[in-house]
C-alpha cells in the first residue's frame, strides 16, 4: 500500500517536473519530448495504480502522438532550435492567474467530489482488459464511435486542405483550380 502510494506520488512529481520543463526550454524538440515524458509518467502512474491496460496504452499512444507534435512544432515555429533567444511567453500575469485558479479548481474537485466507495481489491489485469472491452463495445460504444468518426473527418479534411489546390486541377492549371 505504502509502496504503491510512493510510486504514484513519484511518477506524479515526474509528470509535473517534465510539464514544467515544457515551458522552461526554448527548443521546440526538447519542449515536445518533455511533454511526451510527462505523459509517459502519467502512464506509469496508471501502472502504479494497477490499471495495466490503461497504463500501457497511454505509454504507447503518447510516444507516437508527441513525436508527430515535435515535427509540427519544428515546422511552424520561427526558431525551432531555440538558439535565437526567442521568448514565447506573453500575458504572464493573466496566465499565472489562470493556471493557479485551474489548479485550485482541479484540487477542489478531487477533494470535494463524492468518489463512491473505494474498491477493496482491483480485479486482475486480464479481467480489467476484458471488462474494458465489454464496456467499450457496449454502453460506451456510441460515444467512442462518435469521437472516432469526428477525428477521422478532421483528419481527412486536414489532408484535403493541405494538398495544394493546383495539384488537384488538370495539368496544374491554376485558373481552373481557383
Amino acid at each position, binding site marked *: 500500500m505504502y509502496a504503491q502510494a510512493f510510486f504514484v506520488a513519484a511518477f506524479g512529481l515526474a509528470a509535473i517536473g517534465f510539464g514544467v520543463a515544457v515551458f522552461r526550454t526554448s527548443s521546440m524538440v526538447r519542449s515536445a519530448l518533455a511533454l511526451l515524458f510527462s505523459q509517459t509518467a502519467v502512464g506509469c502512474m496508471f501502472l502504479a495504480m494497477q490499471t495495466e491496460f490503461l497504463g500501457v496504452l497511454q505509454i504507447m499512444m503518447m*510516444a507516437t502522438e508527441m513525436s508527430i507534435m515535435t515535427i509540427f512544432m519544428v515546422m511552424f515555429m520561427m526558431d525551432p532550435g531555440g538558439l535565437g533567444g526567442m521568448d514565447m511567453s506573453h500575458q504572464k500575469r493573466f496566465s499565472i492567474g489562470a493556471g493557479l485558479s485551474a489548479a485550485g479548481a482541479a484540487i477542489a474537485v478531487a477533494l470535494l467530489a463524492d468518489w463512491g466507495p473505494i474498491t477493496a481489491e482491483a480485479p486482475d489485469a486480464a479481467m480489467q482488459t476484458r471488462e474494458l472491452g465489454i464496456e467499450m463495445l457496449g454502453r460506451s460504444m456510441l460515444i467512442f464511435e462518435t469521437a472516432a468518426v469526428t477525428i477521422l473527418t478532421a483528419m481527412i479534411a486536414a489532408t484535403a486542405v493541405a494538398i495544394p489546390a493546383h495539384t488537384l486541377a488538370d495539368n496544374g492549371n491554376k485558373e481552373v483550380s481557383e
Partner: protein
Amino acid sequence: MTVAVVLLTLLGSAWLLAVIEDWSATGRLRPAAPMLSGLAHLGRESLVPRKPDRLFFETAPVLLLVVTILGAGVLPLAPDLVIADLATGALFINAALAYVLVALIMAGWGPNGAYAMIGGWRFLGQLIAYAMLIVMPITAVAMRAESLVTTAIVGSQESLWNIVYQPLGFVLFIIAAMALAFRAPFDLPTAEGELAGGVDAEYTGMRLGVLRLARLLLVITLASATTVFYLGGWHGPLLPPWVWSLIKTLAVAALILLAGRHLPRIREADLMGWCWKLGIPLALLNIFVVGLQILVVP
C-alpha cells in the same frame, strides 16, 4: 534468474547473428570478431559534434538499447522462460518499441547535423506508417488467441501456426518489422549512399558501439516477436522448447538480414505510398478474414 537467462540468450543471439553477418560479408568465420569490434569501439575517441543538444545526443543510444530489451522482456522463450508474462504483453511490446521512434528523433536532432536530422525526421514518417502494420496484424493474432498474454498467444498455435492460419498478417508483420528495425531495404534513416549514415553519421566510439548493439538487439527482438506471434513460439518436436524458440528466432533474423542484402533501398515516397494505400487496407482485410475464420471454423 529468468532475467539473467533471457538477457544472456539475447546477447548470445546478437553475437551469433553478428558472426553470421560477418561471415556472409567477408567469407571468413571469425567468432571473436564482434567482441573485437566492440572493444575497438571502446578504444576509439568518441567525438561530440559542435553545438549539440547534448541531452538528446547522450540519451538516444541508451534509450534505444533500453526499449529494445524492455520489448524482449514480454516475449517467452519457453512456457516458464519469460521475464514478465504481462496480461497486456502483445500491447506492451508495441508500447516499448514505439520509443524506438523517440530515440531516433533524439539521435537525429541531438548532434546538430543536417544528415542526421533528415534521417531522424524520415524515420518519423516511416514508423508512423509502419507502426499501423505492426499493431493491426497483432490485433488479428490476439483475436485468435482471445488474449493479449504472449504465452497464451503461443498456446493458441499448438495445433496450427499463425503463419498458416493468417499468412497475410505474417507477410505484413514481417515487412513492418523490417521497417521498424530500419534494416535495408527500409534503412532510410541511415541510408549509407545518400545520407552518409544519417542518424549514425555523427556517432563515434563507445556511443556508436551502443547504437550498433541496440540495432542488432532490435532485429533479435522483432524476430522473436515474429516467432511468438506467427511461428508457434516454442512448439516443435524432439528438441526442448527454448531451443525451438532460439532456432526460429535466429532463422527469422537471418531472413531479415538476407532480404536486406539482396533488395535495393526503396524510395521514401514509394515506401509511404505502399503502406498507406496498400498495406493498411490489406491489414484491415486480414482482421476481417481472421474474424470470419474464427466465427465459421471454430
